């Protein structure tokens, strides 16, 4: 029987090494280890042997069986590896082909800019309030202390719906609405559309956007205005941005100022964007005129406030170096997607 086992083993080794398909190996397993397999038969025939012989032969048969199983598994694994390798080769892809995607849409540059400005002010505790695009002369001019004969009231400057109703020329009427409906403390910004009779060209648009801001509380000073807007400039244009406040005049603020920001393209050295001056005019601001506060029945002895307003198009165009305002309202998708 020993010889028989030896022969089986040798035969198995030979056949395995010659095997070319998984099926052959599988067939071998059945032939050797299956119910009627040769090793099984040997094991089954051991009943006839003496206990001593049975012990020796049992060990030999079992180790032969284990050895065959090991060889079979090895062969199976080798076949599997081979098949995998083949499959991987077949399935190889060109990873440089483009991805499949539903492209993200892009926000309009004006929205992007308003969002940036709003984010900065919201981080400083400003809420957002809005007002109508069609306004009354009262809210747009009278309540903002604009002189009755101010040229901006002319039909050549302002679009009118009726004698008393117009398209707002600034977002400042939202200040008036806020003051009329809310008691101090007030801390709001109001972004929105404005309209003026400007024929469209590279730098003019009859419709444009502003962001207005208003703070009213006890003890608000012009130093607070400077601090708030300086912090805004640093957040929007980078921590190196410097600000300069110049006296100016607006009917609805007193004292009034214009704020320049050190040129964020050249850092103040002078370049095309800042026209060599190193500074860029960004916004108008000032302490809210008592006449305006009075419209909201605010106690002007107790409360003071500041207000500011900036042109969104101007900031967007400066920041992104857009050289023609009309591009913003043409909505060429190739333009829009540049700001993705």
């Amino acid at each position, binding site marked *: 029987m020993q010889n028989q086992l030896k022969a089986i083993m040798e035969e198995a080794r030979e056949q395995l090494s010659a095997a070319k398909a998984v099926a052959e190996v599988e067939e071998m397993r059945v032939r050797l280890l299956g119910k009627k397999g040769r090793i099984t038969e040997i094991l089954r025939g051991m009943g006839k042997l003496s206990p001593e012989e049975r012990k020796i032969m049992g060990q030999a048969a079992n180790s032969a069986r284990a050895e065959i199983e090991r060889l079979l598994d090895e062969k199976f694994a080798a076949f599997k590896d081979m098949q995998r390798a083949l499959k991987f080769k077949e399935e190889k892809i060109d990873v440089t082909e483009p991805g499949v995607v539903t*492209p*993200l849409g892009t926000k309009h540059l004006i*929205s992007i800019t308003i969002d940036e400005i709003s984010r900065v002010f919201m981080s*400083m505790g400003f809420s*957002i309030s809005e007002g109508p695009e069609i306004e*009354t002369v009262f809210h747009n001019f009278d309540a903002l202390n604009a002189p009755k004969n101010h040229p901006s009231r002319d039909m050549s400057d302002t*679009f*009118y719906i009726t004698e008393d109703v117009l398209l707002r020329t600034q977002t400042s009427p939202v200040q008036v609405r806020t003051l009329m409906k809310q008691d101090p403390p007030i801390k709001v910004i109001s972004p929105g*559309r404005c309209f003026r009779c400007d024929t469209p060209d590279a730098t003019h648009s009859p419709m444009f956007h502003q962001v207005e801001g208003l703070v009213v509380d006890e003890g608000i000073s012009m130093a607070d205005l400077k601090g708030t807007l300086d912090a805004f400039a640093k957040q929007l244009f980078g921590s190196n941005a410097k600000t300069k406040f110049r006296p100016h005049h607006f009917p609805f603020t*007193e004292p009034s100022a214009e704020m320049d920001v050190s040129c964020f393209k050249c850092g103040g050295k002078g370049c095309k964007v800042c026209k060599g001056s190193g500074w860029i005019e960004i916004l108008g601001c000032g302490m809210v005129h008592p006449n305006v506060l009075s419209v909201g029945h605010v106690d002007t002895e107790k409360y003071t406030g500041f207000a500011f307003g900036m042109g969104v198009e101007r900031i967007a165009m400066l920041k992104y170096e857009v050289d023609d305002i009309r591009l913003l309202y043409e909505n060429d998708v190739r333009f829009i997607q540049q700001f993705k």
Partner: protein
Amino acid sequence: MLVPVKWLEEYTDVNVSVDEFCDRMIMSGSNLETVEYFGQGIENVVVGKILSIEKHPDADKLVITQIDTGASEPVQIVTGAANISVGDYVPVALHGSRIPGPLHGQPKQPGGVTIKKGKLRGVESNGMLCSCSELGFEDKVVPVAHRDGIWILDREYPAGTDIVKALELECAVVDFEITPNRPDCLSMIGMAREAAATFGTELRYPDTKCEEKGAEKTKDFISVEIRKPEYCRRYVARVVKDIKIEQSPWWLQKCLIFAGMRPINNIVDITNYVMLEYGQPLHAFDIRTVSGNQIIVDTAQEGETFTTLDGTERTMTGDALMIKDAEKAIGIAGIMGGLNSEIEEDTTMILVEGANFNGDNVRATSKRLGLRTEASARFEKGIDPNLTVQAVDRVCRLIEILNAGTVLRGTVDVYPKEYRAESVKVRAERVNAMLGVELSAKEMEEIFESLEMKVSRLGNTMNVTPPTVRQDLLTEVDFVEEVARMYGYDKLPVTLPRSNDEAKKSRKQRLRDMAKDALLGLGMNEIQTYSFVSPKGLDNIRMADDAEGRKLIKLINPLGEDTSVMRTTLIPNMLEVFGRNYSRNTLAMRAFELGNTFINNHHLEDPLPEEKDMLCAACYGEQESFFTLKGILSEMLYKLGIRELCFCPEENVGTFHPGRCAKIFAGDRELGIIGEIHPDVAEKYGIGTRVLCTELDFDQLCQLADTEKLYSPLPKYPSIKRDIAMVVKEEIMVAQLEAVIKKEGKKLLESVALFDVYRGKPILPGSKSVAFTLVYRAQDHTLTDEEVSKVHDRVLGGLRDEYGAQLREM
């Protein structure tokens, strides 16, 4: 306001460089636009005296001159100028000199022109005689006397002197931007007052003390009556005799030129000079033409015609203020004098008028006539009536100084109600609180006094009286600004307000952000279009004549028809944008706009129309269909928590394809419309492909939106999936079948999803095969096959009974 720095130095010292002057003036509140440097770009141009003029042998229009330029030999120059005579002093550009140009009849060269010697028709010419414009003067300021031809200098200068030095042509001219609250700064003295306060220098007033050498009195020659005191606060007149009309001396001409005005003759120049000095417009009438020795200030006859100095006949309205004599009008008050009373070469006696006219009246008349002048611009902004006497005296004094006439004694001054400045109480604490500083009352007092204000101070409270030219200083806060700008905005501290509120966005703002973000994520690009549109857009989208959207809000004064009405729908703008992109070869596009529309529902209690937020989303391109847009829309609405949608076929909206359009409902609320744009509409916008478009009432969405999220337990028990396919008539809609499935599937039906719609063999025409996947699940136990079959059979039965569905083998 053009301020020549050299002229300004007449009134106060400027001890700093021009750059520093400008910077500090800006910081004290006088913003400026530009600084121009006169006299730059002129090199090696000298004063020359014309020694001889001979005819050119070969050219009729040229002459050969010999010029003394201070050298040992005269310089020969050939010129085409016709206005020169022997003995004239002229600017001579020598060989190798540079002038700003432009050369006569040529365009201006950046950087100027170099003059070289050469031959003109065979005769050597060693330079050029210059005109004013060749030396860089703008046409509008070239003195009348030198407009044609060579600049003949006003007097003798040493030959060979550099022209820039001889005529003192070098001057920085600062263009200050004067804000409407500071009309007092539209004058040299006003700007000098600012400069004096800024730099702590002294303000000097001009000489106004007349010698009055004439024996006669002004009042014997003229009487003045103001019939409309509401339009004329003051009228001051003086009479000057022995007038000699001639050119002004160069120093005076130069001031006007630098300040952007053209010298004309001595009398006109003096009135202009004094107007620029004081900001008070002045006028001179030839007294010969003033009949009855009477000046009457009164409004015009309605429809009366009047010819102004510029020779234009104008028709007046009844509220236009006129200067009249006993018989006729001789000037439009504050705007322009009449041709009939103009100063002529032979004028010998003049009336100098300095008056104070009502700004609104001047503005209205000026606007109606379309006639804006230096004078009207100043009156419109408001002038101190107390300037009139000084200004008229100054004119007369200058006439004396220039030896151009004899000033008569006295002044006629009609001043019904004297204007005095009110004093204003200013509290130092208040000023400090508003500015965030701690200045003493004394420091504030010094600032006020530097601006020529009178201060009486009691402790920390001041009563401040501004000079009457400062009509902008009316309340305490106006004085706060004076302190702030003179102290320096840059010196104010930088602090942050104590925080008072957390930042909030309204529900609507948050929902807008949410909707936008969802759409952006779904590949939609945001567009922004004008709020005003063309009314034609509604025809283009075939909007029904009786639609609400036809009730347009119109602008009274639009820029043009294209922007003449407020939009009631966003669709035309969207299609216009698509049309533009399509024509630029963009083959596919997805876009949305979230913006206002304007509803013409005028209520008496609110003067303003309703503004309604609308959302328009659209797409075109090979990949797009009704269902891609529907999917995008549904996904966006899902994000807003609006999940039970109903799409009802709509065949009667002209904008859309009648077979591919639906109204969108959530429950019984109509949210909007979706569909394929009607081919005729797409064609109108030049779009040669299918366009899908939806427009939703965003305010409705905001009302319905529910963004609260709650956890629901994940299922514990397995589900059972059953697919069904059935043949139904073509007109049976998927939503109808779904409704039956849901109704019959009851609680065990977890979901139903369409997975196929098939038309074609072996299905008969007019029918279609529709296939759904149904998922059954119980929350509390594992479903058995029998349980599911029972419900499923009911579903199948329902479909059969309600819509005659024939089940197909799967």
